[in-house]
């Protein structure tokens, strides 16, 4: 199992390295004609294959079907891009099932957007107009899996939650820190993995690894390992290990057994979520402090983060606003230095990636 998973993870890592910065922005673009570069390549290749099989003298009637996990909006974007590519190759597109398509003896092309274990798969089944009973020509290309997503629109009953994806990678990580480092804004990203602390620098709109330091530990980590980065205190904490120093300068960071034992996390009493991860933010909403808590499933289920208002120390917190759904379990939840934000690590069950989000709680009065 493990070698196979590693191969898969390596494959994903390559894809992520390619499109970490570019893809999400492009997929999120509302303009349906804009696709990530890798998708443009794939759509162009499919158009080339269609053009190799069909003469542009006759129009194409294009029918599309989405069998993938892409949303209808995203699938429409891909179809539009394919139509554009075909038009660039001198094809006319007749509306499918239209009288015009029949009258112009259009070549039917069934375009299917599917998904394999590794990629999205774009399939064109090209019917023959001269031999209707013959098997269609099949053209297949692949496009890398890029997780599209649109920021959740939450109601703002009391607390409204918003999330921003900061980082994702196939391998587990425990915490992250996004740092403003001159001259750029947010130019350093520190990722705490079980075995190392990695610093990435923003360069040409991409994160490039700058430095990694190993985290020594004499005993195997516990299976439910937790660790956190405190930028303010310049401490990276894991069970039995503290690394002290500025994460902006990993050369000067040093790790050793902690002089003071790590204190237990203070959690808030939330009825029904006693064993969930929860974190009390510095922000306040009305008369209470703001608490975020993960859901009640186990680590094999999708999760959510719910906002709570904790008015009195000896009373349970009460839910406020609607929960924010996530594609996998929250494995860590830490308060950000900004008063109304937290860092959440989520293991996306669809992609297998670990994702780091900044979750912001806004109090609406």
């Amino acid at each position, binding site marked *: *199992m493990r070698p196979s998973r590693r191969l898969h993870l390596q494959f994903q890592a390559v894809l992520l390295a390619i499109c970490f910065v570019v893809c999400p922005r492009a997929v999120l673009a509302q303009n349906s004609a804009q696709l990530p570069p890798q998708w443009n390549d794939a759509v162009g290749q499919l158009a080339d294959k269609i053009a190799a099989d069909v003469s542009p003298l006759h129009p194409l009637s294009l029918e599309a079907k989405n069998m993938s996990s892409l949303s209808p909006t995203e699938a429409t974007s891909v179809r539009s891009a394919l139509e554009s590519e075909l038009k660039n190759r001198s094809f006319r597109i007749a509306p499918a099932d239209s009288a015009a398509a029949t009258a112009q003896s259009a070549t039917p092309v069934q375009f299917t957007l599917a998904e394999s274990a590794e990629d999205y798969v774009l399939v064109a089944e090209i019917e023959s107009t001269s031999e209707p009973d013959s098997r269609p020509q099949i053209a297949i290309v692949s496009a890398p899996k890029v997780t599209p997503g649109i920021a959740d629109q939450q109601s703002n009953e009391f607390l409204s939650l918003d999330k921003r994806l900061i980082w994702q990678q196939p391998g587990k990580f425990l915490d992250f820190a996004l740092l403003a480092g001159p001259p750029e804004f947010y130019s350093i990203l520190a990722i705490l993995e079980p075995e190392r602390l990695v610093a990435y620098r923003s360069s040409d709109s991409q994160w490039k690894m700058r430095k990694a330091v190993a985290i020594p530990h004499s005993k*195997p980590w516990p299976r*439910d390992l937790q660790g956190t980065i405190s930028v303010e205190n310049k401490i990276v904490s894991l069970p039995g290990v503290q690394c002290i120093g500025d994460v902006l300068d990993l050369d000067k960071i040093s790790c050793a057994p902690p002089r003071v034992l790590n204190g237990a996390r203070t959690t808030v009493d939330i009825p029904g979520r006693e064993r969930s991860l929860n974190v009390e933010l510095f922000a306040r909403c009305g008369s209470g402090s703001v608490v975020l808590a993960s859901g*009640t499933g186990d*680590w*094999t289920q999708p999760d959510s983060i719910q906002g709570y208002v904790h008015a009195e120390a000896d009373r349970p917190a009460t839910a406020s606003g609607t929960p924010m759904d996530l594609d996998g379990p929250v494995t860590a939840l830490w308060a950000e230095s900004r008063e109304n934000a937290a860092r959440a690590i989520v293991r996306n069950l669809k992609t297998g990636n670990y994702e780091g989000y900044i979750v912001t709680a806004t109090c609406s009065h």
Partner: protein
Amino acid sequence: MLAALPARTARRPRYGGTLHVEISATLASLDPAVEVSTPEEAAAKSQIDGLIYDHRDADGTFSGEQGSGPFRVTTWEPGKHATLEANDNFREGRPFVDSIELTMGVSTHDRLLDLQLNKADLAEIPPQEARSASERGMRVSISKPDELLALVFNTADSAASRKASVRQAVAQSIDRAAVVNFILQKTGESAGGLLPQWSSGTAFLFPTTTDPARAKELWSQISPAPKLVLGYHSADPLEQSVAERIVVNAKEAGISITAEAIQNSAPKNAPVRSQASHVDVTLLRWRMPSPHPKDALRDILLLLYAGPLAGVNSTPFPDSASPQDIYNQQRAILDKFTVVPLVWLPQVYGLSARVRDWTVPSPAEQWPLADVWLDTGTDAGADKQP
């Protein structure tokens, strides 16, 4: 307050407890030098090896010392029972459960009963039993369909099977939907290609519909019409049910075919079990060794070209095969009707209510028993650390 909570409110894993696992296979030894005699034993041995060895080599074999994995064997009664204890020093962290009690040689009936009585925490369930188990309130975990049940024609020994029209007529007479709906109780899906849709993304291009009229027409053109024998594994009740269903379908199309149980007389590690020479066509069960379409297809191609397709000129399959190459390879084989995919079967597991963080393994993955923990309903042991 905790007592009033629903059973599944736990979030953070807990350490402790004994996981009771029941399997049908009987293993005499875990010694790598001792060969296993059935695919079930091989699968069970692989699962146990995955628990006691640190890692697998690139060739799929386990290496290193026994006990270097998340568990170590402390009791071994050949063919009956084993106890595996958690390895506190496992590289990836101590497992959550303290130990695993593994009982071997348990029948399907007894496994289902023990799951219902909470005497077992984890047991494999045949796919055809999944629905009824679920309807009886059992907790069932089902994988993506990753095991192919297919017809394979014995073109080496059977003159009838060497006729493409015979193979095509049989293939087009089969009602796969009936197999899925009635025999498998909808636990599975019709197979048209050599890879499932979730793996290749292109399985939808291979039709799975039945065409009895076409089958009848093809058969009527064959003279003299042969009498075919369909062999199935004598110890596999699912194969028997499917074989009998195929016979019914074929007879509706006028095809003369009988089903016959055959012993698994294949040599150990043979790619495809040997077929009795009088058998024209047999059922083949093949489990994907990898979720990746290229790797999985390469594996079944090796099986087929070493067995039923031996001597057939194969299309080169490049290392960097594209989805188009993968489709073309399948199309080239399936157009010959020597191999007729029937259904995709999932792996089905029954779980007790206290099992948490069980993730159904994909092809090539091991049972994730190091990640599983037991929700005992109390906080005792919740914060116990290794």
